[in-house]
C-alpha cells in the first residue's frame, strides 16, 4: 500500500507534540546543563532536535539504567511493570531507531518475552529524525544503515528547512498521522527537497568498507596478539558500553532492609571485572584483553551468529567518548588487515 507523506510547518511542532501527547507519553531529546538525553517532554518544554546525536542513547526509554522489577515485603511481592500510557519517541536518529530492532531480538525472543521491555515497547511509536548532517564519527553506513534509514521507525521525519516531512513507515505510524488534522499532504517539491537532503547526507559519509567477511576474519583471530595490542591502552571503564544503544547486558540486585525491599535490574558492562566473576572467585575473563574481546566479538561475531546481523548500529558514541580514543572503526579495519596478513598461514 502506498502511503502519503505529510508535511508540518516548524512553527506547528509544539502543537503536533501536544496532540501526540494526548495518546502517548512523549519522549524527546532534551538539553539539561549541557547534556542532551531523551526524557519525557513536559508541556512547554523545548526539545533539542537540533542536536545531532544525544549524549545518552535512547535505549533507557524502554530499558532504564535502573529498573525496579518488583517490591517485596516478607513473602508478598508487588509487580512494578510499566503501566503508563504508550510511549512515543520523537527525534531518535535512524541509528538509534535501528537499535530497537536489535534489542527487540534479545528481549522479545520467540521463546521468552521480557515483560519489562514489552510493557514499555508495546504500542510505542518511533518518530526518527533523518540526519541531514552526519557527524565525522558516524559510521551507520558501514552497518547496513544510513542517515535516512527507516529501519525501526514508524515515521521518518525529515527537516526540509521551514518544515518537517513525515513519511509513514509502519501502519501504526500511518494511522496516527492520518488522524492529525494539522498535517498537510507533502507536495512533489517537498519530497524532492527531502530526496536531495538524503543524497547529500549519504554522499558526505563516503564509501563504506565491506564488512561481509568481518565475522569470519574475527573468528579466525580469536587467539591473535591483536587483542593484546588493542586492549593494552583500554582503561576498562564502561563509557563505551553505557553510551552504546545496543549493549543490553544487565545485573540483578536486591536492595532490602528488615524484610522489605526491591529487586532491581541495572545495566552492566562486560568491561567490568565483576561481570563474569563467579561465586568461587574464578573469573573466566580475568584481564581487560578478554573483556574487550568479549565486547567486540559479541557485536561482530556472536550477535551475527545468533541474530543474523551485527550488534552495532554505527552511531559513533563510543568513538567520541572513549577516554583513550579506542576507535571501533580502526579496530574493524585492523581486523581485516591482520586477517589479510595471516592469509598465507591459514
Amino acid at each position, binding site marked *: 500500500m502506498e502511503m502519503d507523506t505529510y508535511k508540518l510547518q516548524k512553527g506547528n511542532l509544539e502543537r503536533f507534540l501536544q496532540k501526540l501527547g494526548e495518546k502517548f507519553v512523549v519522549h524527546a531529546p532534551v538539553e539539561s546543563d549541557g547534556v542532551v538525553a531523551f526524557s519525557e517532554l513536559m508541556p512547554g518544554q523545548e526539545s533539542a532536535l537540533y542536536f545531532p546525536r544525544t549524549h*545518552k542513547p535512547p535505549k533507557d526509554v524502554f530499558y532504564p539504567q535502573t529498573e525496579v522489577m518488583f517490591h517485596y515485603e516478607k513473602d508478598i511481592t508487588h509487580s512494578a511493570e510499566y503501566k503508563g500510557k504508550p510511549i512515543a519517541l520523537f527525534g531518535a536518529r535512524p541509528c538509534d531507531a535501528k537499535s530497537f530492532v536489535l534489542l527487540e531480538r534479545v528481549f522479545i525472543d520467540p521463546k521468552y518475552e521480557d515483560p519489562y521491555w514489552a510493557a514499555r515497547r508495546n504500542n510505542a511509536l518511533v518518530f526518527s529524525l533523518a540526519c541531514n548532517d552526519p557527524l*565525522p564519527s558516524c559510521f551507520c553506513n558501514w552497518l547496513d544503515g544510513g542517515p535516512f534509514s527507516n529501519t525501526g521507525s514508524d515515521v521518518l521525519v525529515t527537516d526540509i528547512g521551514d518544515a518537517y516531512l513525515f513519511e509513514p513507515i509502519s501502519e501504526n505510524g500511518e494511522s496516527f498521522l492520518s488522524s492529525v488534522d494539522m498535517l498537510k499532504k507533502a507536495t512533489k517539491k517537498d519530497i524532492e527537497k527531502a530526496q536531495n537532503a538524503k543524497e547529500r547526507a549519504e554522499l558526505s559519509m563516503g564509501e563504506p568498507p565491506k564488512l561481509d567477511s568481518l565475522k569470519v576474519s574475527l573468528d579466525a583471530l580469536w587467539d591473535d596478539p591483536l587483542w593484546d595490542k588493542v586492549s593494552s*591502552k583500554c582503561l576498562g*571503564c564502561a563509557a563505551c558500553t553505557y553510551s552504546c544503544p545496543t549493549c543490553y547486558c544487565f545485573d540483578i540486585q536486591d536492595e532490602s532492609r528488615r524484610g522489605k525491599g526491591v529487586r532491581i535490574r*541495572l545495566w552492566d*558492562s562486560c568491561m*567490568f571485572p565483576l561481570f563474569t566473576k563467579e561465586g568461587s572467585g574464578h573469573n573466566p575473563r580475568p584481564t581487560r584483553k578478554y573483556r574487550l574481546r568479549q565486547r567486540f566479538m559479541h557485536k561482530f561475531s556472536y550477535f551475527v551468529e545468533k541474530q543474523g546481523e551485527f550488534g552495532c548500529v554505527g552511531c559513533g558514541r563510543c568513538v*567520541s567518548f572513549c*577516554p583513550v580514543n579506542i576507535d571501533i572503526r580502526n579496530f574493524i579495519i585492523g581486523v581485516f588487515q591482520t586477517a589479510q596478513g595471516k592469509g598465507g598461514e591459514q
Partner: protein
Amino acid sequence: MDKLVEKIKDIFADEKLELLIGYTKGTLPLRATPILIESADDAGKLIFDFTCQNNLARYLVDEKKRGGDRRRVGIIAKGCDARAVVQLVLEGQFERENVVIIGVPCRGVVDPGKLRKKLAGREIVNFQVNGEKITLFGNGFELELKRSELLSDSCLACRYPNAVQYNYFIGEPAEPLGVRDGYASVDEFEQKSPDERWAYFEKEYSKCIRCYACRNACPMCYCEECFVDCSTPQWIGKGNDLSDTIIFHIVRVLHTAGRCVDCGACAAACPLNIDIRMLGKRVEKEVTERFGFTAGLDFETQPAMAAFNENDKEEFIM
C-alpha cells in the same frame, strides 16, 4: 617532533627499555591516544603536543600487574604524569629503578569534554593553531576560540608544567600558564551557602552513569578491588540512585586525598562532563594548608596521610 623521536631512540637503547609509554596521533582531531611501544623502531609514531591529555602513569599500574614479567619502562611525562609516577613509587607500586621518567614541557592539554561542550553536539574535521588562537573546522562551520578555552581546568591552575623528578628532559621547560590561581575556583565556591553548594553537587552528580571512566583514568585509583565492585560485603547500591552515586564520588575523593596530583584525567574522561574536580581540589587545599604537603614532588617526603608529625595542626581534636 623529530628531536623527541631521536632522543627516545637513544634512551631506548641506553636504558635498555622494554616498554615505552607515550602518545601517538589519535583518530579524531585534537585527540592524541596513548601508545605502548616495545621497540625503538616504533618511536617514529610518538608525538607530544597539547592534545596529549591522558595521564600515562596509569599504565605503570597495569605493568605492575604482570608481576615477575614486568618490564623496564620508559614513560613520557608531563608535569602531572611525573608527579603521579613519583607518588606511585612512594606508595610502593613501582620500583624507582625500573621506570625511566622522560620529562616533556607541557603548555596545557585539551580537555575533550570542554571541546564537546564548545561544539554543542557538532564535530570537527580539522583545526588550526595560530599563537593563542585556535580555529576549529567542521562540515559547514568554523569556530575561533582562545586556546585556553579548550584546556583542562587543571592546566589553567597548574604550578608544575614540567616534570619535577625525571631521568631525562626533552625540550625547554615551560612556564606555568597562570590563567587561574591554584585554589581560586574552590575559594569562590566556598563563598556559596551550603544549600547552593549541595544543589551544585546534586546537579553535577545526578548526571553520573556510573561508567567509572573517572576512576579508571586515574593513576591513583589502583586498588585491586574498588569498594564499589566489592560484593561481599556490598558497600553501596549499584543502581543510579543519587545517594549511592555521590557516595562513590566522595569516597574516591577521600581515598585520593593527599595523593591526587590534579592532572584532570578524571574530568577529561567523563563522557558527561561532570565537574569531578571541585571536590578533589577542595581536599587538596585542605592537605596543603594542614600538612604543607604537595603530592608527587620528591621521592623522600612521606605522603601526608602516611606520616605523623607532632606539629600537625590538631585543633579539630577536642
